[in-house]
């Protein structure tokens, strides 16, 4: 029997989205990061184009997170309350390709920092590193709208990735992104239809489709990962099958989500069957990231430097096989 590789040709193509802007483009970044553009399933180099490899970001904070893992403090303890320096460490020492600035401290319940303070934090980070930025917010509509508007304004032209809007609160932030030329994360709660609906609503208000990144809402390993996994596979399948409103690059947060669950902080003494905590914390983030990479992730925000390193290396290794196909 002669074997012929069964190739599937897709009519759709994942949108190419660029984050960041160099000085020629009106920003101050040393380079931009482009994601998306694939025409076949993730890493199926044998049957489609994959012009850009998934990018891996790390995250810094405007306020020391309440529950930050000891295992991460070993790496970031000295800079955790200095977002600019922490960003520098992430980029210079660990090789972060983008930096996410999490503005959790502006949440009325978690510090209630003002929009101006948030803008200042972001500017600090902008000055300390030259990689493109992701600005990550929270779910307090009224406050985050104010904060993001301000941040969009002071970072005009930098083409930050504004993370995120949702169906019940998208108009203000999306309008700010259009006005100040930023890219946007459209977040929806683990559902293909709801994801698509938000994308339609955004494009209906003339939001440029090449500036949309989807976040199908990451659930971490052991806590509903299978839902995110299958929803992302379905989104990608539909996108490649030609549904333009689902053909956007996808963002996931293995770091933030993993380090909220017990498995990354419960000591081995209490859970001997769970094994070594130090390793386990990194494993948890890696398994979340690796599995979701296979479903169509183009952008990851990771926390543990060792997990980050392994995942980034795996992506690079996978892209090496592209040459052979």
């Amino acid at each position, binding site marked *: 029997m002669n074997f012929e590789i069964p190739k599937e040709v897709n009519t759709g193509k994942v949108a190419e989205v660029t984050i960041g802007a160099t000085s020629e483009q009106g920003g101050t970044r040393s380079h931009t990061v482009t994601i998306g553009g694939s025409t076949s399933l993730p890493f199926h180099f044998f049957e489609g184009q994959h012009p850009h490899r998934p990018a891996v970001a790390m995250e810094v904070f405007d306020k020391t997170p309440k529950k930050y893992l000891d295992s991460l403090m070993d790496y970031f303890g000295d800079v955790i309350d200095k977002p600019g320096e922490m960003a520098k460490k992430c980029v210079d020492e660990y090789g972060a390709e983008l930096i996410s600035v999490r503005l959790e401290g502006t949440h009325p319940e978690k510090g209630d920092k003002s929009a101006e303070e948030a803008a200042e934090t972001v500017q600090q980070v902008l000055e300390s590193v030259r990689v493109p930025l992701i600005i990550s917010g929270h779910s307090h509509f009224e406050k985050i709208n104010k904060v993001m508007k301000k941040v969009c304004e002071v970072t005009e032209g930098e083409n930050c990735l504004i993370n995120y809007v949702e*169906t019940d609160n998208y108009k203000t932030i999306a309008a700010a992104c259009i006005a100040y030329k930023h890219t946007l994360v459209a977040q929806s709660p683990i*559902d*293909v*239809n*709801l994801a*698509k*609906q938000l994308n*339609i*609503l955004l494009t*209906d208000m003339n939001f440029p489709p090449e500036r949309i990144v989807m976040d199908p809402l990451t659930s971490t390993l052991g806590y509903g990962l299978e839902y995110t996994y299958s929803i992302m596979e379905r989104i990608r399948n539909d996108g490649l099958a030609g549904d333009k409103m689902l053909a956007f690059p996808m963002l996931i947060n293995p770091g933030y989500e993993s380090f909220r669950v017990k498995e990354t902080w419960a000591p081995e003494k209490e859970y001997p069957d769970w094994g070594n905590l130090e390793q386990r914390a990194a494993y948890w983030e890696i398994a979340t990231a690796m599995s979701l990479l296979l479903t169509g992730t183009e952008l990851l925000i990771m926390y543990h430097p060792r997990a980050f390193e392994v995942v980034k290396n795996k992506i690079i290794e996978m892209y090496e096989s592209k040459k052979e196909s």
Partner: protein
Amino acid sequence: MTNKKSRTEENNFKVKFLPFETIVEVPPGTSLLDAVKTASLPLKTTCGGKGTCGDCVIQIIEGTYHSKPSAALSDKLASRGFSLACQTEVKDNITVQLPQFRELDIKSIVDSKFFKEQRDNISGVYELNPSVKKIELLLSPPTLEDNYSDLRRIERQLQKELALKKIDCEYSVLKKLAQTVRKNKGKISIFLSLSGKQATVIDVAPQSEGKKLYGIACDVGTTTVALHLVDLQNEKILATASSLNQQIACGEDIISRINFAQKPGRLKKLQELIILTLNNLIKKASKSAKVSISDIYLASVSGNTTMIHLLLNLEPRYIREEPYVPTFNQVPTILSRDLGLKMNNEGRIYCSPAVGSYVGGDITAGLLCTPILRDSKKVALFIDAGTNGELVVGNKEWLMTCACSAGPAFEGSGIKCGMPASEGAIEEIKMLDSGEFKYKVINGTKPQGLCGSGLVDLLAELFTFGYIDRHGKFNEKKAGKKIVKTEEGKGFLIEEGKNCYWGKDLIVTENDISNLIRTKAAVFSACSVLLKNVGLGFDKIDSVYIGGGFGQHLNINNTIRIGLLPDLKREKFHYLGNSSLLGAYLILLSDKNKDLANEIAEKMTYIELNTEPTYMNEFTGALFLPHTDIKLFPSVKQTLNL
């Protein structure tokens, strides 16, 4: 009677609520709203009794009262005895009409255009052959030679005329038989209940009394109840009456009613409420047709499985518990005296057969009015969009069905500006290019709200003109001053208060719109799942029959535009109106339809949507205008340029 027991104190006043005739005693100064609550009757209030929303408007029929003036109630209405329950204190024995329960004026289904044109092509037979018959006999007087008993002589003659095998007789007949046969020289009318070759004499009267044979066909819905009074000697509908199901006080949907029935005494109360509802309607219909209640010998009832359980005082809890098994599928014929229904004491009641817990006799009856069983190749889809939406797809060879909890939105319930299809309801509404609405009100009065067909139009027009986005949220820039703040959030002004019956602005809120979208999504997604289960695409559907309480006219184009019904060629759609009532009428007219309904029930394969893994996905897909997947609605895409 459902009088609530309360301590009788000397100074208490009695408050009587119509149409329930419920009486409660309350201390002086109690607000009427609290009195309503004491009586455990339903009355909507959005503001919680602050006198600002105007939802709790009631009418004082008798007795003096004091009411604080409120901006939410126009002077004109106040002068006509209307009052806000929360602003009215009890100072006397009074009688109060709860306005939600005014009798409805639903037009007779013989107006159904589809039925008129197609009645010879439907699955049921349209003929007059009821299971209770009136036979005129002339009994030869007994002689010494012919000395058979009165009853035997009747039997003998009946056997000769009707080729019957066995004849029984009710005790009540026996008691008056001797006098009756002798009163009018042997000229008597016999009322026979027939079942195949067997018959039971259920009444006898001298012909001179001119006793007639009438029947009633009723649709017992979760939200509304409707009935026809029919002359069974010439199939004519003499009167039609309808009202809200008074059980609504005990919960809006089936599950709530089943829940309610779980406490001791409550099941009985639910039965009493539905019998009360039916008896009020029978009274009203017979009064208007000048018919004696004792001439009503036959009733054909169709309703969902839960409603029939409650009507018959049967434990309903197993309907909702896995594996969802009802007490019966086919109900034996029941005697009116066992239920206390206002008709002849020996009257027979027939309930149309159910398929299962969530597909009831209203659907088997409804299918009788469609041509679905006439063809074994073409595929038809039947949709009954009531409080519970039920769908059937198939043909003569196979039938598949499922049910979804759509909610009562299209019956006008659960929507701030909604109402049943009765006088004062906007049944059609169009938006002009100026942004003004043009509408048609049932009976041409000032509008009180919108019924199902009006709500479909409204949603379609708001969407078409870009006042709401595909998610059902207002486009505030475009709507400008039309967006108003209400107790329930943002709303869109349909008509100013000065032009409305209640004197307050008619408003559709964003919440209402979400509710409507959820309801239409439930129906459409059930439809997709049903078809996917069989492996058929929408394009394989040859015709669609729609039943339900939308109102007289349903604008098919608009139902498609909002994504309630699939985007098929418009000529494939047929609106039946109240198909459950029409089916009950067919069964009332001819006994053959009972067998046909049973045949339909047995052929149906039921799919449980709750355990259908794809349903949730289909549902969220349908929570958009017209649908997340616009490819399913090509004509809407083209017209609206989506």
